[in-house]
């Protein structure tokens, strides 16, 4: 019973923390640390909420969630003796369903992303050209402004013709440094589970906000890395030029409502860099994230 109660408490703590974190601003002062905290909260929430249900349901086995589940799956017998056991059975079904949904959603999102990238890669190989002025970068002939990274084992940085004419050489260099940072740090893998969860639970405001928050943090992390190699002011003007130039006719609701605010937040960080989060704060958050992420798997193993 203790494991179930602790797991339930842990799931609640994660949900509340996630809700608080969506509106936190200190995260902008340490994007990488904040991303790690988000990942830890996500994993722990998933394991704790399903684990709480399963721990309660499998309590009669007295072996913990992992071994209890193994025992249940080998015998496939679940003794219903008292009315109380029906509640346990309900918890078992709910817990297993939630776990299956989470796993399937993640796998489906991974597969869908993989397909979309493959299609994109094939199209690029037929259409994109190399430009001597920007070696290693693929250029698509389109007047609109676009710059992005197509992640994968061999990631590609792609820009449009419009970007080439929109930006000054210094700004272009800054944009490419930013995209290279995405490639290096595999930010796509950071975003994948949050995007998947958002598609699975489109009505959940917390999940939507979490995805948006992590998306912005990933951009800020890339900005931070880029500014080591380029002039931050050039990156800022490039951001502003992009935001205003990409005013293509867009379908209703296709754009994030806070796109403009996000661009301004990034620009302000670049132009007036505030003080980063003190090292010992970052260390505390880091240690907290690690403990949090380790706690749920441990609780899955504890009997009783």
């Amino acid at each position, binding site marked *: 019973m203790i494991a179930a109660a602790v797991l339930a408490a842990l799931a609640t703590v994660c949900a509340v923390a996630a809700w608080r974190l969506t509106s936190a601003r200190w995260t902008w002062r340490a994007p990488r640390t904040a991303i790690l905290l988000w990942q830890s909260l996500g994993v722990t929430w998933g394991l704790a909420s399903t684990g709480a249900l399963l721990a309660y349901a499998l309590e009669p086995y007295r072996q913990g969630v992992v071994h209890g589940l193994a025992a249940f799956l080998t015998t496939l017998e679940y003794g219903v003796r008292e009315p109380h056991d029906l509640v346990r059975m309900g918890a078992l079904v709910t817990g297993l369903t939630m776990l299956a949904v989470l796993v399937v959603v993640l796998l489906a*999102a991974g597969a*869908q*992303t993989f397909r*979309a*990238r493959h299609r*994109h890669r094939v*199209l690029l*190989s*037929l*259409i994109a050209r190399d430009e001597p002025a920007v070696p290693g970068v693929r250029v*698509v002939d*389109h007047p*609109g402004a*676009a*710059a*992005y*990274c197509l*992640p994968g084992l061999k990631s590609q940085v*792609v820009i*449009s013709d419009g970007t080439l004419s929109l930006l000054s050489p210094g700004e272009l260099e800054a*944009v490419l440094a*930013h*995209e290279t940072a*995405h490639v290096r740090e595999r*930010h*796509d893998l950071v*975003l994948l589970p949050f*995007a*998947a969860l*958002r*598609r699975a639970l489109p009505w959940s405001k917390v999940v939507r906000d979490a*995805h948006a928050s992590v998306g912005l943090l*990933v951009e800020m992390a*890339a900005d931070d890395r880029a500014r080591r190699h380029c002039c931050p*002011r050039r990156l*800022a*003007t*490039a*951001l*502003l*030029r*992009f*935001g*205003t130039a*990409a*005013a*293509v006719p*867009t*379908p209703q*609701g*296709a*754009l*994030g409502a806070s*796109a*403009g*605010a996000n*661009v*301004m937040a990034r*620009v302000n960080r670049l*132009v007036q860099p505030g003080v980063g989060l003190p090292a010992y704060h970052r260390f505390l958050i880091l240690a907290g994230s690690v403990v949090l992420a380790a706690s749920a798997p441990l609780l899955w193993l504890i009997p009783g």
Partner: protein
Amino acid sequence: MKGLGELERTIMDILWAENAPLTAREVGRLIEDRDLAPTTVMTVLDRLSRKGFLSRTRDGRAWRYQPAASRDAYIAELMLEALDLTGDRDAALTRFAQAVSGSEAEILRKALTELEEQ
């Protein structure tokens, strides 16, 4: 000898430039690399058809190939994804910056002028 990928690209360019469906032999004649074996051209045409980039019709004993969609249509598809306008919100790409709508664009424009004046 070109790589297969580059050859696919060359052949698509040829077929996009022509307005009529071509046979493998006609495509082969238009490729600059004269040493290319006719079977290689056929292989690549077949690959591109299977991937859905070419459609083919019977013409006597030969097949005639033409692009399934225009070059511009594929560019548009790439750009829709690049600008995150497909509505999918997937994590397929990481983009530099999002497009901004009317009133917000005005704020950014002002900020840009200020930054450039400093």
